[in-house]
């Protein structure tokens, strides 16, 4: 019994070569027509560092930790992002806000340590969806190359959005 997985298979033509095949020239001219036709075609590549392709509007890249209007960290270290993370890339430690730190943290509890392992992360965006405080977002940039694995563990300082 024979069945085909797809209709893309092509039977190999095993007939002996005709005279037209044997002198090769028609085939070579046909090939030249194909390759020379490509001279005027649009280039498939771009001049990368100067020109960059646009990402789709739903592209999920590197994470960012958001701040509120008064430059206070929104994250309360509730751990929902870590819980929702299918790749278990997020770790955090919480701490209590001390008096006098109100200008730094929005609520009484904050993340003393917040790390995302970018090698584990699958950029699914579930942390973004799980966050009740609008604190974590996925941006349009991607993690740059690094020389060792430690460099891919992003600390809170790497993730925090710069002051406005």
């Amino acid at each position: 019994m024979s069945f085909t997985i797809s209709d893309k298979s092509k039977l190999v033509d095993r007939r002996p070569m005709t005279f037209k095949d044997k002198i090769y020239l028609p085939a070579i001219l046909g090939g030249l027509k194909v390759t020379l036709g490509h001279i005027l075609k649009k280039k498939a590549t771009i001049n990368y560092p100067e020109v960059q392709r646009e990402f789709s509007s739903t592209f999920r890249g590197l994470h960012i930790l958001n701040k509120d209007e008064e430059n206070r960290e929104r994250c309360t270290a509730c751990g929902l992002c870590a819980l929702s993370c299918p790749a278990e890339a997020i770790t955090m430690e919480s701490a209590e806000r001390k008096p006098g730190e109100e200008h730094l943290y929005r609520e009484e509890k904050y993340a003393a340590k917040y790390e995302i392992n970018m090698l584990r992360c699958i950029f699914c965006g579930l942390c973004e969806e799980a966050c009740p405080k609008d604190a974590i977002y996925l941006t349009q940039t991607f993690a740059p190359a690094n020389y060792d694995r430690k460099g891919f563990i992003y600390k809170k300082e790497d993730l925090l959005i710069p002051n406005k």
Partner: protein
Amino acid sequence: MFLLAITISFIIQKIILAAIIIGGSLGIALYATWAERKVSAVMQDRRGPTRAGPFGLLQPLADGVKMFMKEEIIPIFSNKFLFILGPSLAMVVALMSSAVIPWGPDMKFADGTSFSLQVADINIGMLYVFGVVSLGVYGVMLGAWASNNKFSLLSGLRAAAQAISYELALGLSMISLVMMTGSLSLNDIVSQQHGFWDGNWFSWNVFKQPLAFLIFLVCSFAELNRAPFDLAECESELIGGYHTEYSSLKLGFYLFAEYISMFITSVIISTLFFGGYNFPGMDAVAAMVPSPLFSIICALVLLTKAIGFILFFMFIRWTIPRFRYDQLMNLGWKSLIPLALINMLITGAVILYLNK
């Protein structure tokens, strides 16, 4: 004393001309490497070298510097003298055949002196070209053998077998041309193709000997070890074949010699079949401009033709896959040689009929 003065000025003239030709060949070969990368890029919808200079025009220099900087390795068990001789021979032989090519008509100056644009007008120019071309295989063979590496040796043998097989068809296709022109001097062959139309028929040899041209073209691909006949190298699947053990500048010499040979072969094809420096309407141009300028125009026309052939060699390389070894030998021995013989027979019959 007078004779001596003439001889010395003659020698100086020839040295200047040879220096210009060798420098020009090197320059064109240098930019042929750039062109090859651009042509392949364009055919594959890529951009090719763009970083070094505008349009990547400094890329050949960057490549050269890279080759210079690489470590120079001579294998312990190699024959050191022959190991160095191999690439040098490849380079020298590639440049040698440019000596007999007529680059343009003589420059005639107002004071009656003239300056020939041919380094050596020997009456067996074509034989000389063949002799030099067949020397080319020694560069490959010596390098391969001196490497003391079995893969290099096998590849060198393969290259030698290929070159010898195709030289036969090359020579035979030339015989029909020589039968027609009645001269082995390249100068005569070119001047016989004067203009474009001689009153009855096109004057360029390609219109008189199309089959010989085709055979010559196919054989030059094989002689140059270029795709589709680059079995000696196979840079994509073997490790370069005969130059596996070479590094640094010696490797550069081998790679560069290929481009020089390609340029010289293109010039020879243009000279033999495409009218050399002749172009349609050349008599009108000759009447308008002074002789030295006309000679330069003619030389530029020859260069344009040669560059066209170089581009053609590149288009073919990036279009069709490599021949298998048995296909290569079948094509050479069973198709091209009989075809060249038949062509010879037809040419002879036609010449006899016309001279009846």
